[in-house]
């Protein structure tokens, strides 16, 4: 099933990756949608795509009502890559990595998702494991936005997972363990990251803004920070949309702390809005010792290329490497990407 070493983007090798998986069919409860593995997804977690104008023109519907979803018998289909839109293509690659990592797991399955949002990756990997290789498991979901944390727990419970038996980490992921300035708010959008708010230049800019605004603004900011761990500043997460978050001080964690408790991690998935370029490089040796497979949603072509080179130069097998915001051709058909796709496999494990 697995591609041989150095055979990048050999999609032909994955033509039958879903062989033996019967697409889920059955009754879907009201207000839910479902995927091919039977993962039930509360429509509330995706409602912004229907209600926020311009965010996704194809989905926007001013008459959106959660009640219009579910409450009936449904048939699902296997993911496809031929002529796939960006979301469909990304979902195909994610599902392939769930399947392959689940099949390769031995003894216990450990899956870590960075920037977990409402937990779709963790639950998807769990469902794949149950389908092809049921084993004891531990899901680790890293997500600093409180609203998302609640959704992760709900999404797990909705799919038969006890969140108290998993590790839901309410912290930002970074290259150092110092607290970071992070935009908190807008659960579900998945656009929050600390790359643009925590870097030295951003911090210096915030300090300058307060200080040049005068004594009262400085005193208020000082008060906010020392008493409430917040700058009080609002940041627009998606330009042109009314999607805002408050820039707060948030505790962070690094890959060193996340991997520390485990001997082997079967799948490490990351969708952290460009912070991947900070988070991965310092721990490339540790990853090689502990992680079997990594799936990174990359953001920005330079970030994608830098990470591809980092892993390739470190001896990892690059399985998928498709740049973000591009159209691609393959033996299984053409597709588009929004986030880039970088899947690497550890040759040692």
């Amino acid at each position, binding site marked *: 099933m697995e591609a041989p070493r150095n055979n990048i983007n050999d999609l032909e090798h994955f033509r039958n990756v879903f062989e033996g998986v019967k697409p889920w069919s059955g009754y879907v409860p009201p207000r839910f949608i479902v995927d091919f593995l039977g993962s039930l997804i509360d429509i509330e977690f995706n409602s912004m795509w229907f209600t926020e104008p311009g965010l996704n023109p194809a989905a926007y519907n001013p008459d959106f009502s959660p009640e219009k979803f579910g409450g009936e018998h449904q048939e699902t289909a296997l993911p496809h890559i031929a002529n796939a839109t960006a979301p469909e293509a990304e979902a195909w690659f994610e599902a392939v990595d769930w399947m392959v990592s689940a099949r390769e797991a031995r003894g216990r399955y450990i899956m870590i998702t960075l920037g977990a949002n409402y937990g779709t990756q963790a639950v998807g990997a769990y469902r794949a494991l149950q389908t092809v290789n049921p084993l004891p498991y*531990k899901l*680790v979901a890293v997500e600093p936005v409180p609203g998302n944390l609640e959704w992760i727990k709900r999404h797990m419970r909705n799919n038969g997972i006890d969140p*108290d038996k*998993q*590790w*839901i*980490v*309410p*912290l930002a992921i970074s290259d150092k*363990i*110092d*607290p970071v*300035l992070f935009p908190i708010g807008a659960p579900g959008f998945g656009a929050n990251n600390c790359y643009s708010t925590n870097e*030295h230049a951003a*911090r*210096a800019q*915030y*300090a300058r803004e*307060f*200080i040049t605004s005068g*004594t009262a603004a*400085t*005193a208020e*900011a*000082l*008060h906010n*920070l*020392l*008493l409430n*761990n917040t*700058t009080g500043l609002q940041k627009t997460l998606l330009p042109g949309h009314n999607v805002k978050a408050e820039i707060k*001080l*948030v*505790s*962070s*964690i690094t890959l060193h*702390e996340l991997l*520390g*408790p*485990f001997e082997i991690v079967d799948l490490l998935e990351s969708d952290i809005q460009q912070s991947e370029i900070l988070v991965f490089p310092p721990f490339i040796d*540790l990853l090689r*010792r502990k992680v079997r497979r990594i799936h990174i949603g990359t953001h920005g072509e330079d970030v994608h290329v830098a990470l591809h080179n980092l892993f390739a130069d470190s001896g990892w097998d690059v399985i998928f490497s498709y740049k973000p915001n591009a159209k691609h051709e393959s033996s299984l058909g053409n597709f588009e990407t929004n986030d880039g796709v970088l899947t690497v496999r550890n040759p040692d494990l």
Partner: protein
Amino acid sequence: MNVLRIAKRMLGNSDQAAQTAIEARLNEIIAGVANQTELINQRLTETIHGLDNQSQLINQRMSENVQGLDNQSEAFTNSLDKLVQGIQNQSERLSNKLDKLIEGQQAHLQLVGSKLDGLDDGIKSQSQALPIGNPSHPLIEQHNEHDAGIARTIRAIDAKGNPLIGPKEVTVGNDEFDDDMPSSPDENRLERFQYIFESILAPPEVEAPPGFLVDFMGILLDSRFATSSGHDAEIAAGGSRRVTIPTLRENYNADSEWWFETVDWFVAALEARGQFVMVSLGASYGAQPVGAYKALQMVNPLPVKLVAVEADPQSCNRIRQHFRDNGINPEDHWIVQAAVSDTAEPVLFPIGASGLGSNNCVSTNEPKARDIWIETIKRNGDATSALENLIRYGSTGLMHNIGGGCSGEVKFVSAITVADLLSPFDKVDLLECDIQQSEIVALPPYLDLLRRKVKRIHIGTHGEDVHRSLHRMFAKAGWDVVFNYKPNATHQSPWGRIRINDGVLTVQNPDFSTVSRNRN
């Protein structure tokens, strides 16, 4: 010459010439036969001679073998004699030891008996002297007034709150548990642990490398980490060191806390099954995880995962070094550079004075403390630089006295909760906590989770109110209280008085404690 006669008879005398030729030929044959006979005789003689030689050799070899066997048999006999002698010697030594032990035990029993008699007499005489049933007796009045004073003090703490702790301070004054009474049947029954170290055959002296201290378990400690050891020339030179097994006997003013910690390492190690997981909160340089690790290696070697949580970066480096100094690869374990708190919100924490072990965030992070920082910054008139420090570097730029003549810079540090630390594991064998009063913030929110996952908890408590509150919390939640000794006090033990600085609170999870219950 029968052949010649037969030939002559066959030929007659008819052919004299032929007869002569035949005779000549016969003579040749006879001579040949005679020669061959002689040769055969000669060969036979040689063969017999050879056989004689071989027989002689064989006899010689056999004699040698017999001699060798005799020698070996003698050697075996000697060895057996020595073995028997050795066994007899050992048996004698063991008998002597047993006799001494029995003598000691008898003496000890006599001593205990006499002490008990004395105690009994004392109790009787005191009972007779006590004004029982006379509430107006001055002693009873004095006692009642003392109780009332304590109650007033507790109510005052309840009403005003601890100025450093703020609104999260301990609520005391709940009389459901009398703190002087044991809440578990086995609470403070120290005699149960009298022989806990018996199986440890610690040599009286251990070799220490230059610059290191060493203890009875062979744990090496870089003398720079030991605040009380100084850096004397003897330690710098290394060499043989006399070590002692921890004891509470006659241990007044000595380090009693060490005894309790060590007992908990060994009990947790003995009870572990499959894998040993040990979590140390406020790990300083890692004394507790290394101690637990060494105990495990001595009594129940199992796969192990050590978790050390410490907010001070320099201390985290020391943990790694202390691990390496004791043969533990830090990369195989989990060292978390964060403060332990009740939530994951960043906390204001004094960073510095590594190894002192006094850093905590109760006095720097609670709302009242944060108010103080704002007031201090205002009073200093440097709000602009303070804000810049905070936003750019996460630091207030202010120093906080953390005791021992040391201070730390008050900075924002990432916090981690007990939930985050326990979640990766199905079971934790020992959770050790020495976080300078933050225990009252960090542990209570996760009482249910602790019950699901942790077999044994050892808390160094700070402040009597904190100690009492945690004791009450665990007892009320059904945990078996093993040790309960208030901080900053002198306590009575079966072996004399013990002085406690940090309080000692050890609780055992009854859901996991079948082994210890059976043993007890």
